[in-house]
């Protein structure tokens, strides 16, 4: 029976070509947009975690309240022993200490006086310890534009565009003017080892990366850090696990009134991240719904037109004694075949387009000039296993709905009037 219906469809191109093309376009767009949103969501979470929030982040309570102002005077102290305890309690996580800082970067002339000066935001991470995960977390080898990564104390990496603005060359001295943890004036000399471009506007806008030991010495933050970040070993963020871990960590200190006691926050619980992620999820669901809706209407219309064109054929079939239910079932069977065929082709085309965007990306840097989100300037899709099957939902559902609604007309035909209708 299936073979019979399939042959009928293939031989009558007006019944197969237009509906299949509709399904192909719809499914292709669904697969492509799903992978595109998936890519943005993955990139946003990944960049935010690596550069800013970790999968979980530990700060002092006082620091956490004003975290956007980077109040290093409220930083965590006794970071060495706290990190050791965290490694014992959560062996599956990678723990790193970081210091964010701001100030001025001053470039001297030959006489040692100010030649160029610009406000700077910096990040101090463990660049020099043997086996430190930080160079890998920041993918320093990939983002390096000129020079090399720091190999000895006193060396820093400067944002490529920032270095050009300051007209600073590799090997030049750059003086950081900032504020110590105690609030004093901090002045420290560094040597520019290399320049970097993360492709994340929030990171590249006047940023430097320095070794945490150097910044601790410069800002008088011995055994202190603004933040301790924790990453799952596979670098995949798992929200329920992170939230549960943070809740357990904080409940152990619930009775402690010390405003400098550590507090843990999961990625999705930090600075509106949860709202953003919920919005991305909602948007992705909405896209699917809209595609299913639009395609159903288009296919319903196609089904109606087909029914009108096949008015005579259905009448003859009814006159020959075929039951209405059987005709309705064959129409639905045909539509499912068209849906399956269109979905297969549409998924293949959508996946191909997604792979292209995953590999090559689309540079939207011009739209991210003042962005504060940790999202890449290059928009990439991410092909997920789910995207291999997601097209079947709109592909089959829409064709089924279209045929089911338009096919209801069969039940309105009256056998008694068939002869008149067929003008026999």
């Amino acid at each position, binding site marked *: 029976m299936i073979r019979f219906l399939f042959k009928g469809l293939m031989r009558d191109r007006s019944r197969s070509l237009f509906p299949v093309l509709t399904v192909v376009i719809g499914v292709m767009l669904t697969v492509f947009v799903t992978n595109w949103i998936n890519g943005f969501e993955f990139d946003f979470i990944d960049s935010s975690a690596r550069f800013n929030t970790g999968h979980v982040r530990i700060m002092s309570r006082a620091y956490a309240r004003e975290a956007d102002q980077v109040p290093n*005077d*409220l930083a965590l102290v006794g970071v060495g022993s706290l990190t050791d305890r965290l490694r014992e309690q959560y062996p599956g996580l990678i723990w790193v200490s970081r210091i964010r800082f701001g100030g001025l970067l001053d470039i*001297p002339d030959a006489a040692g006086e100010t030649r160029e000066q610009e406000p700077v935001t910096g990040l101090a991470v463990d660049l020099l310890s043997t086996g430190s995960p930080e160079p890998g977390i920041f993918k320093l080898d990939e983002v390096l534009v000129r020079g090399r990564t720091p190999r000895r104390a006193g060396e820093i990496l400067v944002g490529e565009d920032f270095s050009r603005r300051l007209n600073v060359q590799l090997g030049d001295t750059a003086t950081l*003017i900032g*504020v110590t943890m105690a*609030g004093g*004036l901090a*002045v420290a000399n560094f040597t520019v080892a290399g320049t970097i471009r993360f492709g994340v506007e929030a990171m590249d806008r006047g940023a430097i990366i320095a070794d945490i030991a150097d910044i601790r010495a410069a800002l008088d933050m011995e055994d202190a850090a603004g933040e301790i970040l924790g990453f799952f070993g596979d670098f995949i963020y798992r929200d329920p696990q992170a939230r549960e871990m943070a809740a357990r960590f904080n409940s152990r200190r619930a009775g402690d009134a010390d*405003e*400098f006691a550590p507090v843990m926050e999961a990625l999705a619980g930090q600075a509106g991240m949860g709202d953003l992620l919920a919005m991305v999820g909602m948007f992705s669901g909405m896209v699917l719904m809209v595609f299913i809706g639009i395609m159903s209407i288009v296919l319903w219309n196609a089904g109606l037109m087909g029914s009108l064109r096949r008015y005579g054929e259905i009448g003859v079939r009814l006159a020959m004694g075929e039951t209405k239910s059987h005709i309705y079932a064959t129409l639905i069977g045909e539509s499912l075949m068209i849906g399956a065929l269109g979905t297969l082709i549409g998924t293949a085309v959508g996946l191909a387009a997604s792979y292209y965007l995953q590999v090559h990306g689309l540079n939207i840097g011009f739209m991210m000039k003042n962005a504060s989100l940790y999202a890449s300037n290059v928009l990439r899709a991410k092909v997920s296993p789910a995207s291999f099957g997601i097209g079947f939902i709109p592909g089959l559902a829409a064709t089924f709905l279209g045929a089911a609604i338009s096919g209801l007309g069969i039940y309105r035909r009256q056998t008694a009037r068939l002869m008149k209708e067929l003008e026999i």
Partner: protein
Amino acid sequence: MIKRRPAWILVALALCLAGAQAPSGDWILQKVDENFGSDNKIVHSRMIIHGRRASRTVEARSWIQGEKKSFTEYLAPPREAGTKMLKLGDQLWTFSPSTDRTILISGHMLRQSVMGSDLSYEDFMEDRKLMDLYAARVEGEEALEGRPCWVLELTAKAEDVAYNSRKVWVDKERFVTLKEDLFAKSGRLLKRTEVKDVALAEGRWIAKRVVFKDMLKTGEGTEFLLDEIRFNAEIPDYIFSKASLKK
């Protein structure tokens, strides 16, 4: 017969009544400027900065010439010792011995705190006479810590002033500012200074202990202690040169 009073009694009465009236705001401001102003000053001071975790004391010696030039050398704590600052007109340089660098402080850095205190570099730079910067109006009289004061409302005459308006309490007899509220253009209170101790030095009344409070920050503020002041002292010219920063 009515005896006529001599005319001089009426004149004296009129003069007394005039004397009892409040002097003008500008006159009070001029007296404040005269009391503290001098060509040269050498000052030894301490700042006790109360942070949220701990307090620390920064000790400094300053050489000041008129309104345009000042040179400060920090003496303690050890981390800050040897740091020097030179102000020439509207420019401010700092020298850090650990880096052997002379750095021009400019832009947004001028609004940053000096050594973590409640004073900004802008506050540090602002030592022009109040008369030149503000128009004064007497708002009333009030007693502060038992001292009768004029309450003045100052409004900036120029655009390049750190605070758009001030409310100051001036001791009626000593012409020392005992309290000051500093406001932004929006009317928001930014800083408050309160004089806790006044002493006589070289025939002038000066504020010996002042508490500065940045009203936008939490904390107990910064105490400024004036340990020693010499008015009209001899200051060699080389002090106010960039070369002296590295000496």
